[in-house]
């Protein structure tokens, strides 16, 4: 009993740390990249949320921002980037193209990045306004704290399976 | 007048001036030669000049009530309705001069005066003649400053049709369709002037078997079909040319579909078969496409993989073939295309050397036959099977029933799920060593099949059917087969390959080409081009 409380408190503390130091991997492909720049730029200033530091190596980042249309040709690359990221990791689909394909419903555009990898937060908009992005980041931070990110849930489930609980 | 009669008259009376079989007139400065008896509007269409019209329909009599086709004819004091004016030699017609243009524009404004602002809720919107004509010809804002005349809006005319009297522009096309096509006087006009209104004739209901043609000819949204209204917007539909599967007449139709689903069937003009019409029953045949659909192969009634099902079918059939070849029967389907039946004939006759052939399909319905379009034989392709099987006429379902009851049959390969058998004979099917059914519906004989192979429905296949006149008509695939289903010819090809036989058809086109080579009745037929479905929004509105 005591151990459980201790580990869950420890987990909370770790999650608290995680949510204020999201290292993003901007998987920037398209128009939304312009708005992603704006989010990072002085006026909207992503740094206020501790997520200002883009890491262009998947191994050093824990938040994958899928910014822009994912095409069928890009699918394997996206999957590889995601697989290379260390656990726990979170994914944001930035804009409708990354969420559903948007108004690109055709032979090349993939109908949403979640065809390839799991996504935690979807941001609608074509492109979304920077305010929406900040909202999504705050939503994700809440999730991170509560341990409801997809990889956190997966991790917990695997742990349960391992311990036979 | 035909060339023959002219030749007859020429010899005895050379002095008499010969009546010309064709006339030459000038429309908008362009000369055009048309057969005598053509009206000006059709002569103009031959030139590519589209004179606007509401009441004129090439398949109906001419009444000239809408006055929308007025043109200037030189030498005539007044404007002439071009649908009623017959083309004459030396006639000079102007369709784009200010007078006739102005007259047509005024008529259009007049027609629109009391028209309700209904486009957003109107089923005809997007394929409405009034909309297109206004957009192309007038495009001027409204000048009306008094309230519009109101009329009844949801009037039930019969089992299939609803009338919105406000939208009606009083062209009387629907009345003429009932009178001239169906031969039943069921619709009339009542009152006069701006209170004139369409209604059913006293003591009548609009219930003739061709009633939905009134919806097709209606240039506006006054008449709508209960079957289609409020289900799908017309401009969202894609149209694929095909042939009606309702009976042996083989009316040419357009499958109008969206999202892998048929929403309605409308007739496609073909003067040799159905002119501009089709019957109501034929229009409803699309409902069956979604009922009890078989979408994956079944072995013993359970869904299975294709390779397993094909192997099971091949093994079961081969076992009987090797021991009792004469006790293996093959049932052809007049509900399937020539290609499907030809592939089956190739497998059964040329490869497996089976001689016991039957023809399945639906039983005839004599009471539905009339002299207009409807035929007693409710299968679209019986004539095609006769051509494919040549001299060796296959036995009907009655013989199959006899043979089943007498225990003459040990294995059956059946195409299509329709097999008009008595309950007793149906029960016998369960006792067969092998019963392989290739069908698109989980009903009828499919329910008793040891192995059921899912085939594509008629809306999903490209192919040909032969109608009662012997015309080979082309069907196009509207969309991809549902689930795991495959076109029947492909199922047969795979079945042949699974049993080790060499049957290598790669497309319906290849089966067709093979059939044209091998079957005498198909000599000279051509496959034609494959159509691309066109969204109705971008096609011209139908009139």
């Amino acid at each position, binding site marked *: 009993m005591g151990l459980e409380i201790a580990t869950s408190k420890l987990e909370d503390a770790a999650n608290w740390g995680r949510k204020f130091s999201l290292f993003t991997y901007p998987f920037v492909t398209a128009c939304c990249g312009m708005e992603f720049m704006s989010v990072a730029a002085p006026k909207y200033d992503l740094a206020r949320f501790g997520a200002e530091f883009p890491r262009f190596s998947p191994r050093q980042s824990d938040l994958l921002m899928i910014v822009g249309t994912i095409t*069928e*040709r890009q*699918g*394997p690359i996206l*999957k590889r980037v995601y697989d290379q990221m260390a656990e726990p990791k979170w994914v944001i689909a930035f804009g409708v193209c990354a969420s559903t394909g948007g108004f690109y*419903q*055709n*032979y*090349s555009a*993939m109908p949403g990045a*979640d*065809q*390839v*990898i*799991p996504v935690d937060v979807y941001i609608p908009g074509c492109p979304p306004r920077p305010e929406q992005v900040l909202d999504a980041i705050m939503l994700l931070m809440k999730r991170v704290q509560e341990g409801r990110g*997809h990889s956190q*849930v*997966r991790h917990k489930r695997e742990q349960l399976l391992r311990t036979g609980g | 007048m035909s060339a023959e009669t002219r030749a007859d008259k020429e010899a005895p009376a050379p002095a008499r001036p010969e009546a010309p079989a064709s006339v030459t007139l000038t429309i908008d400065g362009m000369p055009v030669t048309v057969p005598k008896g053509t009206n000006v509007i059709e002569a103009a269409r031959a030139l*590519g000049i589209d004179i606007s019209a509401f009441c004129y329909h090439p398949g109906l009599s001419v009444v000239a009530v809408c006055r929308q086709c007025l043109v200037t004819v030189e030498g005539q004091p007044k404007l002439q309705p071009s649908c009623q004016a017959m083309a004459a030699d030396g006639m000079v017609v102007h369709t784009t001069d200010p007078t006739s243009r102005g007259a047509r524009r005024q008529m259009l404004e007049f027609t629109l005066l009391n028209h309700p602002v209904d486009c957003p809720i109107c089923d005809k919107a997007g394929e409405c003649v009034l909309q297109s004509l206004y957009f192309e010809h007038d495009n001027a804002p409204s000048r009306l400053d008094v309230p519009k005349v109101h009329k009844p809006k949801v009037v039930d005319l019969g089992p299939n049709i609803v009338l919105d009297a406000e939208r009606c522009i009083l062209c009387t096309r629907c009345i003429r369709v009932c009178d001239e096509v169906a031969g039943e006087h069921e619709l009339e006009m009542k009152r006069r002037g701006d209170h004139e209104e369409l209604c059913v004739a006293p003591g009548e209901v609009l219930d003739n078997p061709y009633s939905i043609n009134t919806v097709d000819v209606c240039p506006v949204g006054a008449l709508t079909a209960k079957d289609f209204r409020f289900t799908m917007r017309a401009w969202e539909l894609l*149209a694929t*040319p095909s042939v009606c599967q309702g009976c042996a007449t083989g009316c040419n139709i357009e499958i109008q579909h969206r999202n892998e689903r048929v929403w309605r069937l409308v007739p496609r*003009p073909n003067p040799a078969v159905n002119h501009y019409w089709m019957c109501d029953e034929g229009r409803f045949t699309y409902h069956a496409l979604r009922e009890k659909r078989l979408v994956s192969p079944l072995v013993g009634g359970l869904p299975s993989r294709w390779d397993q099902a094909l192997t099971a079918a091949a093994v079961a059939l081969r076992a009987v073939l090797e021991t009792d070849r004469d006790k293996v029967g093959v049932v052809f389907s007049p509900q399937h295309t020539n290609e499907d039946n030809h592939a089956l004939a190739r497998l059964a006759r040329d490869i497996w050397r089976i001689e016991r052939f039957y023809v399945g399909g639906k039983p005839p319905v004599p009471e539905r036959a009339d002299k207009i379009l409807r035929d007693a034989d409710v299968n679209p392709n019986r004539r095609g099977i006769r051509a494919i099987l040549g001299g060796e006429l296959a036995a009907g379902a009655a013989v199959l029933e006899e043979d089943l009851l007498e225990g003459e049959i040990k294995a059956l390969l059946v195409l299509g799920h329709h097999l008009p058998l008595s309950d007793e004979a149906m029960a016998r099917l369960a006792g067969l060593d092998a019963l392989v059914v290739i069908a698109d519906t989980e009903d009828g004989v499919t329910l008793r099949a040891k192995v059921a192979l899912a085939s594509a429905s008629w809306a999903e296949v490209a192919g040909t059917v032969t109608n009662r006149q012997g015309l080979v008509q082309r069907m*196009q695939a509207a969309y991809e087969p549902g689930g795991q289903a495959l076109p029947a010819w492909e199922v047969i090809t795979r079945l042949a390959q699974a049993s080790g036989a060499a049957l290598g058809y790669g497309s319906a086109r290849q089966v067709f080409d093979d059939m044209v080579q091998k079957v005498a009745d198909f000599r000279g037929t051509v496959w*034609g*081009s*494959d*159509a*691309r479905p*066109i969204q109705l929004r971008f*096609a*011209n509105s*139908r009139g």
Partner: protein
Amino acid sequence: MAKAVLDALRGKFGAGILATSSHHGEDVAIVTRGALLDIARYLRDDPAMAFALPCYCTCIDYLGLEGLQPSAGTVPTAYASRTRGEGSGAPGARFAVVYELRSLVHGQRIRLKVPLAEDDLVVPSLSGLWPAFNWLEREAYDMYGVSFEGHPDLRRIFMYEEFIGHPLRKDYPKERRQPLVRREWTDE
């Protein structure tokens, strides 16, 4: 001025020029496949032409609309819906490869169109004359399946190698996807 180019082409290449037209102030020469390379070289090298700047190269698929393919002197007529899908009956090639060139010196443009039949979709490559056409022709190959004879590196440019078919052809359905990778959907 503009007319002069077309006149010069007609005078010099005769049978190589199937038709010429000038609509919307644009000069179009419909040329045969055999004459394309010579015409292009002449347009580039002759000082009176000096079409130094290649603009673009693409292909048009006239499937079911072969009548729209402009032939000698005719203005294309509207596409009648009644004949849709059946082909308009007019004899015309299904495809046309289009090259547009600009002369900076003389400030004019010319569009060369080469009609091509579906079963013989081959045209000499102009990438040897203007390297710009290297990629543009690869694009036309990728999208329409036009084979450019003499192209140094004819492979797909937008689509992946695994892709089957040529997506901009009118008979390729817009939403027929050919996925490279998909996720196994679990309850994560």
